[in-house]
């Protein structure tokens, strides 16, 4: 030893706060570098952990996006709530014209569109391209079997009860055969949305727990592989925080990596369904863009991944590092 100072004096007090803060800073810097090295040296194993955590985060993420889009879809549908009114087959034109005028005069009705029997038949013929049997059946009949119909669009704020009341009243009009409330679909959509919400929540909890368990198992392995080092660190005066810090970083790294993996998987999935989904929505005259894959969503996925990683690490440390509290 070339320097003798400091070898004989003994201080049994904790160092001043400034020194401890400096040690804390250097330790974080060192642990961050060590974690980067650890992960990069075990890239395949780390990738597999990220993939597992990412897969566990992907389904909850997709369910959340699906939920957001169902809500948006339901909202847009609600704006077009209305009725379809079917006349009796062979109803006279005068009756149809009279009803059209009275419907247009209704307060709640925004728009009235008449679909004549001829238009309905033409539309039906247009849909028989794939069915030779149906085409032949339509050719075989002499008279048009389809009734005239009215498509009614109501005010945006029309409630389901108002739709029902109007529907009952219209059924009493002469020549009216049936009235179908379009918002029946809205109710179904809402039921579907609620089902997705409840089922998705349960499934998401299970998958998020799986993500915690994956990071728990990975951090526990890291602890096992460093027991010798922990033993030495305890003997040379590492605090509990200094012994635990590397594993918290591992947990955070696994969680963040898993979050990034989940974002990539969700992006790939959404990209693959975007075209058929848009086509489907357009067939319902709904020009909805897929919503939910926003900046705040990405941040939320990353934060959730980080949080689950930290939870897994804390779980592993509480189970495996308790014996090192005295440095033994």
């Amino acid at each position, binding site marked *: 030893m070339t320097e003798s100072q400091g070898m*004989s004096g003994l201080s049994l007090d904790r160092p001043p706060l400034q020194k401890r803060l400096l040690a804390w800073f*250097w330790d974080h810097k060192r642990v961050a570098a060590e974690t980067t090295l650890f992960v990069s040296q075990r890239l395949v194993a780390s990738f597999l952990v990220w993939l597992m955590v990412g897969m566990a985060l992907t389904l909850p993420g997709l369910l959340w996006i699906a939920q957001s889009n169902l809500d948006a879809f339901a909202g847009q549908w609600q704006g077009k709530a209305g009725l379809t009114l079917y006349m009796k087959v062979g109803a006279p034109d005068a009756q149809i014209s009279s009803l059209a005028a009275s419907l247009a005069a209704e307060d709640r009705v925004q728009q009235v569109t008449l679909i004549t029997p001829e238009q309905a038949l033409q539309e039906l013929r247009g849909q028989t391209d794939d069915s030779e049997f149906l085409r032949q059946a339509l050719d075989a009949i002499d008279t048009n079997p389809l009734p005239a119909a009215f498509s009614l669009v109501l005010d945006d704020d029309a409630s389901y009860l108002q739709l029902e009341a109007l529907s009952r009243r219209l059924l009493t009009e002469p020549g009216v055969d049936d009235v179908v409330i379009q918002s029946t679909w809205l109710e179904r959509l809402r039921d579907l949305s609620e089902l997705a919400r409840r089922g998705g929540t349960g499934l998401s909890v299970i998958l998020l727990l799986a993500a915690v368990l994956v990071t728990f198992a990975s951090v526990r392995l890291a602890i096992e592989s460093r027991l010798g080092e922990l033993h030495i660190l305890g003997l040379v005066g590492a605090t509990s925080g200094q012994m635990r810090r590397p594993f918290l970083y591992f947990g955070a790294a696994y969680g963040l990596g898993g979050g990034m993996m989940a974002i990539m998987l969700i992006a790939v999935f959404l990209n693959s369904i975007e075209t058929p989904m848009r086509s489907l929505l357009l067939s319902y005259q709904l020009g909805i863009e897929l919503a939910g894959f926003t900046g705040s969503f990405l941040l939320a996925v990353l934060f959730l991944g980080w949080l689950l990683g930290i939870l897994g690490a804390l779980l592993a440390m509480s189970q495996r590092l308790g014996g090192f509290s005295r440095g033994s």
Partner: protein
Amino acid sequence: MAFLELQHVTRRFDNGQEGLSDVSLGIEQGTMAFITGHSGAGKSTLLKLLIGVEAPTSGRVVVDGCDLRSLGAKRMPWYRRQIGIVLQDHNLLPDRTVFDNVALPLQLSPLSAKDIARRVRGALSTVDLSDKGSLFPRHLSTGEQQRVGIARAVVTRPSIILADEPTGNLDPFLSRQVMALFHQFRDLGSTVLVASHDIDLIKDQGCRILHLSQGSLVQDTQLAGAGESS
């Protein structure tokens, strides 16, 4: 008052066996002493009590006037940072270089990488391993590994050096080299306590010898000899 002091210390294990039995002793600051005795005599238990890894069942372990029991979990790490510990099996980390092994205790302190490097180089120079810093422990001989362990123990410039059978795996020549290092640290102001059963080596060191048998202190002798100073 002695610097290291055991006051009527008894250490009883969970199985009822006593590792130490009503042991009282005191070691002055800046001195070097040996604890001898057969396997199971209580040498390692005594060192563990001084490190704070184990607590006495009864009695007090007092260091520089402070009962170690009063330190608690918060202050214990800072106490341990002032102790250099040398173990028989070195406990070097196989996946770290010699340099990193020696640097391990310094990484806990508020030192920059530059300061750590300077002090590690100094410690390696002291044990004559300046050119081995980049090697891994498996590339070193047993004697060199033990010197790395010593460098790691003294790199923090500890006030106390506790060594448990530090020459157990070494030949007589290397054992004397290690002892010379301990004398050197003693001369620099550290209080050195070495547990060893190698009587032939110890009797040449000219130090105080505390002989344990079945957990009791049975002999306390002060020798004068060649190793008094180096």
